[in-house]
């Protein structure tokens, strides 16, 4: 009897914490999104779905922009991260941990501070653009800050480790003898890569896509620091609705929609491929 109780006693405190501060808040938010009222007089549940329709229609540009930026960021990340992960996994040899540390150490710097450093680097007359402009290589009107390029570049920078690590883990698991066998069977380097290495690395890429697309699409710090009025993402809208306008029902409806879109895709994905891999990678 006592034996049967042990796991429940172990799980209880943490489980309650997750229930209280994750499940209950999510439910509160969903409920609040269907209420009407204001901060001063309180809210009443009215099942007012119109809030959703209004919020989505008003901010559909920012919604679509966020998903587009998220998708582009993820695609760029696959392209940037795969060769690096491949190089460390295959050519890293004994220095693999050192290279990984070099790659990850920038992330010991606070996220906000890193993003602000980028703004400092990219300002019109800053260390990067200033010299190029005075040398006449760039026109004086050229600027990066405030453009989608700056925002997507910042997003790629922020989420790079979440793509490199899962891909690295997948590549690292590949038995070199499998690739040798392919070569022995007269596969050229390209064919061996395409037909052996790539399929074995795909789970890592999938995990990376999952771990970067969601946070990149919902990010608001990067576009607030590096972007401009034409790059506003849905995260900025939600943040402003909550913290500046205190328009809680509309803000809740927006973030519930964001959550539904992102988590819906995620759960479909998790059902298809299993959660174990992702969580293992997330823990690294």
């Amino acid at each position, binding site marked *: 009897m006592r034996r049967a109780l042990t796991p429940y006693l172990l799980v209880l405190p943490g489980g309650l914490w*997750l229930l209280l501060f994750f499940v209950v808040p999510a439910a509160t938010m969903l409920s609040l999104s269907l209420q009407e009222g204001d901060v001063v007089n309180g809210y009443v549940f009215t099942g007012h779905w119109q809030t959703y329709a209004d919020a989505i229609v008003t901010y559909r540009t920012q919604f679509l922009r966020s998903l587009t930026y998220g998708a582009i960021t993820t695609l760029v990340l696959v392209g940037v991260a795969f060769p690096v992960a491949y190089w460390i996994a295959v050519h890293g040899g004994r220095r693999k941990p050192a290279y990984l540390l070099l790659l990850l150490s*920038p992330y010991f710097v606070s996220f*906000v501070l890193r993003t602000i450093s980028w703004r400092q680097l990219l300002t019109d007359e800053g260390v990067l653009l200033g010299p190029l402009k005075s040398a006449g290589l760039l026109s004086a009107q050229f600027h990066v800050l405030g453009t989608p390029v700056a925002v997507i570049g910042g997003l790629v920078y922020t989420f790079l480790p979440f793509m490199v690590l899962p891909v690295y883990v997948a590549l690292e698991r590949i038995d070199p003898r499998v690739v040798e066998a392919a070569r022995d069977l007269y596969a050229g380097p390209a064919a061996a890569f395409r037909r052996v290495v790539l399929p074995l690395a795909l789970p890592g890429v999938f995990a990376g896509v999952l771990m970067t697309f969601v946070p990149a699409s919902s990010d608001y710090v990067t576009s607030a620091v590096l972007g401009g009025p034409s790059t506003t993402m849905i995260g900025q809208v939600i943040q402003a609705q909550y913290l500046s306008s205190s328009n809680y029902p509309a803000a809740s409806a927006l973030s519930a929609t964001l959550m539904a879109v992102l988590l819906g895709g995620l759960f479909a994905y998790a059902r298809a491929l299993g959660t174990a891999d992702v969580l293992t990678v997330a823990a690294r």
Partner: protein
Amino acid sequence: MTGRGGGRVLRAYSLLVIAWLTLPVLVMVLFSVNDTRGRYNQSWNGFTLAWYGRIFERDELTRALVTSLLIALATMLVAGALGTGIGYALGRYRFRGSGVLDLVMFAAVACPDLVMGASLLTLFVSLGAGLGAVTIACAHVMFAISFVAVVVRARVLTLDRSLEEAAADLGAGRWTTFRRITLPLLAPAVSSGMLLAFALSLDDFVVAGFTAGTTTTFPLWIWGATRAGLPPQVNVMGTLLYLTGVLLAVSTAIRARPRRR
């Protein structure tokens, strides 16, 4: 796998990516030793270490850093204990509800920070709870639990059970076995999970932004001060935190290295 030339191109490319990643860190370190005079620490005025001596001269910034460190410490301890419980149970026992727990943990890891922070705000607002360091810590423990649990579970699953059986054969009770055998074997996973919790808490900006009220943490202070110009003390603190992180990572890596015979 690839020819020599391919390897060299890959190497050059990877080093270029690493350089790109390190660029903002260099900017941060550089401007921590900049002899700046005006309000904006943006252009190079020559080398000085003066700011390191004057690191605690901005009271609000110092207070924000202390708040952040205390919250991170609390998060580390509480999430460490609760996460270890979950991780151990999930790795060792089969029990009803473990599937649901798995799903909730997965959702908590995957859920965007923004949505997490926003929903916590709605909860605290409807409860009429005062926002501050306590609500930030509650939120941080929530998102750190899953990470600790996953790290500990992975370790429990690879644990050699015959060691515990041997202890039992030698007459150790269940509690003694757990305390003298299982716990020491789990210690590396528990401590790396706790470090992760500390780091996640210290770096968090988004969730804290929603649950802080008028309390200011280190990232929140930086965010608020950006427009008025960041004082060089921010760079000094950032540099010191960065160096601490690197040193910790290096020492853990050296300790974890398998010994050669």
